[in-house]
């Protein structure tokens, strides 16, 4: 119980920092929106082909802001040296990982939801209850994304050139998430049949479980001295 509260305290700290400097949130959100719009022009705007590719576009425009957010989440800590403070506190490193991951997760979900609304408008889908399935996908995919991402971002926070290194390390690992999320979204938005949806969700859940557990176990080696 104490551990759960600690996770929340750590996450809440990060979210409060984010809330106080809303600028970062807005910039990241704006960046995601721009990607969405640029994709629309990169393909034929409004054509059926673009609509077919829409699920892929949605997920591509969520990944890039996600990487920026992950980089940022440890940048301030590394620059101000506050990571030392947290690491020195008598808290299990795994708990620190879960706190950080939770903060990133919530932050990215907030962006994801805004982008989802913009996406539905731009690509002319309708607002219906079935969008809740996409929200479920967002929650699950973002959990896995931030689980791996938090480990790598913490690792790279002390390295020069981390801005390029993070996506280089992260993207290959994310292949299954992208495959699962894009195909499940296709079923919801374009096909309207939930033939494999459950399987994709299972895949996302197993990704989340594996990498949350792995992050919990290895975070000690990533931030410890």
């Amino acid at each position, binding site marked *: 119980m104490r551990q759960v509260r600690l996770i929340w305290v750590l996450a809440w700290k990060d979210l409060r920092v984010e809330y106080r400097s809303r600028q970062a949130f807005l910039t990241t959100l704006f960046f995601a929106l721009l990607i969405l719009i640029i994709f629309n022009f990169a393909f034929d705007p409004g054509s059926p082909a673009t609509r077919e590719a829409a699920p892929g576009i949605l997920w591509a425009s969520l990944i890039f802001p996600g990487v920026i957010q992950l980089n940022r989440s440890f940048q301030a800590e590394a620059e101000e040296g506050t990571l030392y403070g947290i690491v020195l506190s008598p808290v299990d490193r795994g708990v620190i990982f879960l706190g950080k991951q939770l903060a990133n997760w919530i932050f990215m979900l907030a962006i994801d939801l805004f982008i989802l609304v913009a996406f539905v408008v731009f690509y002319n889908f309708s607002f219906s209850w079935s969008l809740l399935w996409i929200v479920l996908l967002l929650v699950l995919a973002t959990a896995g994304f931030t689980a791996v991402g938090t480990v790598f971002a913490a690792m790279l926070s002390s390295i020069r050139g981390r801005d390029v290194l993070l996506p280089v390390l992260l993207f290959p690992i994310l292949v299954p998430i992208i495959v699962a999320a894009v195909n499940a979204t296709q079923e919801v938005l374009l096909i309207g049949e939930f033939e494999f949806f459950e399987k994709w969700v299972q895949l996302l859940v*197993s990704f989340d479980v594996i990498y949350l557990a792995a992050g919990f176990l290895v975070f000690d080696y*990533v931030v410890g001295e």
Partner: protein
Amino acid sequence: MWLENSKQFLATASRLLKVSGWMLLPLYLLIVIALWGAFLYAPLPDRPGADPAAIQALGDVQRIFYFHVSSAMNSFLAFFLVFIGGVAYLVTRNEKWDAFSAASAEVGIFLTTIVLTTGPIWAKPEWNTWFPWGDPRVMTELVLLLIFIAYFILRASLPEGEKKYKFAAVCGIIGFLDVPIVYLSIHLLRTLHPVVITATEIRLDPMIRQAWLMALVAIMVLTVVLVLLRTSMRLHHRAAQEMRQQLRERRARAA
């Protein structure tokens, strides 16, 4: 502890070098046997229902399969060794395991490159496509190659030291954990959109299996020999670095 590390590295490195030396002659014989198996012993595959022209056209192309598939299976072995070395390093904090991990990753990249180059050459006549994006095995190989290239990019951007070895171990562990998930995701994708592959069915008769087994054993021994050799070379390199470092420190203290 003056020279203690480097002495340890040297001892292990020399032992590994000796072992890999003993394995060279058997490896040579195994490779020759595998070549014989693939080129002479294995019959042309029986393709029930295919028309004679297709059988004639595909014929010997199938012989690529023996080394291709064996390399693929051993690349998984090599990346599994990276994982093992990573865990062992994090538990024991012994640099030898880092050298072992890095060596295995190199050999893994070497094998995946073989797989991803011989693969298209075989797939074009057999499946009528160079690169079957929907095939789970091909995709897993591709993702593995990308992950372990990233692994070396990470290694290259860190100076020698405990931090580098820890991070590399974590990266290797996280990367290897991805293998089953990638495989499952592409497998599911394929059941969803069946890839149009114009393959004629191959019946694996026992002689084909035996020939393939010869290649598998030969490549496995090759993998082991290369990993041992590279681990030993890496340890020699580390020993030399260590000696230079300690000498420099000693001079600085004396001055």
